[in-house]
């Protein structure tokens, strides 16, 4: 059983390794426009080493052990600038160039903890880390430890990058299909692959939903009338793929025998929570962790109305 699950895992990892852009299009650090916008010195912090750029091929040289999570998005390259000042915490600026604003937003939603601040299109700050996205760029600026001065510098650097990005980018269109009532905004996630799904909500070692870089997934938790549930909305490139994934979920997760045209009401799982699924065209809506059957049914019904 484990061996099979591993094979499925390797397949999904392999699918992530195809580069979004040819590596020769990765800019040299000195040619990256947003990098040029950064100061050499700010409030006593000096650029402390040569800038670096890592692309899809060498991301593991920088994020050894976590590159997979960026490869799961349409990540193109990351620019890294480091600042140092005597007797003060080092500050690192990371600018992730994605191929779309949807994926810049998606990376941003990987972590929702922090205080909202006004930088870029959405930003969170906490304990010396600023994270924000704007257009097709995701930015992290972090101090080794937080001090008032370091925080000021971080916010200034954030504002500098923000100003250097001329336009705003749209959020993923799929978010517009999430039902609004009861939605808990900090829980909204956007991603593509099973690695991301399992980092938010572990479903299976196997890729039951047949997620791939081509699939769009929006996920959010709902609390309506004190009844909670989580909705996973998947957009597939074709109706056939959505149909197949629906069947796999019904059989492999809900443990029901799938039959075309048959309706599958939500079922109670071992943890006393309810799960169910409904498909419409290229879309698959899945309710999990619903407090009761009515909540799962309501989530699916409202999702279906938006598909």
């Amino acid at each position: 059983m484990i061996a099979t699950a591993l094979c499925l895992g390797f397949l999904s990892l392999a699918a992530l390794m195809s580069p979004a852009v040819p590596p020769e299009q990765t800019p040299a650090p000195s040619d990256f426009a947003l990098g040029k916008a950064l100061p050499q010195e700010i409030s006593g912090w000096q650029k402390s080493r040569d800038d670096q750029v890592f692309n899809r091929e060498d991301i593991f040289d920088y994020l050894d052990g976590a590159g997979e999570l960026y490869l799961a998005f349409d990540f193109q390259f990351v620019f890294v600038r480091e600042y140092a000042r005597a007797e003060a915490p080092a500050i690192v600026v990371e600018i992730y160039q994605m191929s779309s604003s949807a994926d810049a937003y998606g990376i941003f939603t990987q972590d929702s903890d922090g205080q909202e601040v006004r930088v870029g299109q959405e930003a969170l700050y906490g304990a010396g880390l600023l994270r924000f996205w704007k257009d097709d760029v995701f930015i992290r600026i972090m101090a080794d430890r937080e001090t008032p001065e370091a925080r000021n510098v971080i916010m200034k650097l954030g504002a500098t990058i923000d100003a250097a990005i001329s336009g705003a980018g749209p959020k993923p269109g799929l978010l517009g299909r999430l039902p609004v009532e009861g939605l808990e905004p900090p829980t909204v996630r956007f991603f593509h692959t099973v690695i991301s799904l399992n980092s938010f909500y572990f479903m299976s070692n196997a890729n039951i939903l047949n997620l791939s870089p081509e699939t769009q997934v929006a996920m959010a938790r709902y609390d309506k009338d004190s009844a909670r549930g989580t909705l996973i909305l998947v957009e597939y490139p074709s109706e056939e793929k959505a149909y197949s994934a629906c069947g796999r979920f019904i059989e492999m997760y809900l443990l029901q025998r799938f039959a075309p045209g048959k309706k599958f009401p939500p079922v109670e799982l071992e943890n006393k929570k309810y799960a169910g699924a409904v498909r419409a065209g290229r879309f698959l809506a899945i309710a999990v962790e619903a407090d009761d059957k009515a909540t799962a049914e309501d989530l699916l019904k409202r999702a279906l109305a938006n598909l």
Partner: protein
Amino acid sequence: MRKRKMHNAVTRRDFIKGAALGTLAIALSGRERDLVAGTGAEPAVRPFAAQNPQSVVVLVRSEKAVGVDDKIDAAAVQDLIDTAVKELAGEADIVKAWAKFVRPEDTVGVKFTRCSWMRVHTEQPVIDAIVKRVGEAGVAGGKIIAQDEGLPVAKCTALINVPTVKVHTLTGIAVALKNYINFSSKPSSYHAPSTNLGEIYLKPEVKGKTRLIIVDVLRPYFGPGPQINPLHRWNYGGIMVGTDPVAIDTTCLKLCQVKRRLFKGEDWPISPPADNITAADKTFNLGTSDPAKIKLVKLGWDKDVLI
């Protein structure tokens, strides 16, 4: 869809169902009590309080170990390690205690972790304290190799595993099992799923060499990652010692799960679950993942010990 396929996937439902998969259920719910409580026919067994333990884990804490600006107090760390090793060895004398784990003729690899981007390093005072005591046990300086990447494990006759504690988006948690991942030539093959992580302990150049595990629990990381958010790190001021990597990881998993629930004020499951821990027990026989078979000895500062 063929029925057999249903059995290929290891799903969340499998974890919820199986008491045999107790460690995973801890990650998913944080409620190990459900897994080891008596069914009525036999008395309840408190987790981490085994009377006849399969494995003993020693945790020693000091409020002095981590000071202002997160500065590590080397003397306090030395004291923590000495106390923990003496307790585990059942010796009042520190040299006699270390003599139970290393011999003068050994070549000792001190495998710490220094992941530059993640920043949850083994603190240098921890490494220094261990190297000092290994030397005092009679091992010549040239035969003590303290290293992370590139440690010549084949040359070593003994290993001391010195990981930190961090929740990890690809393996669930990274402690003793994960710290050996760079003994593999292809570390990313042990990510997502990470079920086979334990097999590294059985590689010919590694098998049987681990004499001691000393975990730096001074400033663990409980957040989702993939990159550190300082909001998800806390000063715990602990050193954990044992010889069973599975029991160590099980204990640290519990610690992080409790901390996550405290941080969010509700269950915040570690995702994906650390299935490598259960597999290290059930598949690779490296130790026990059953909290009811582990005795956790707690010494020193007990404020907010959490486990």
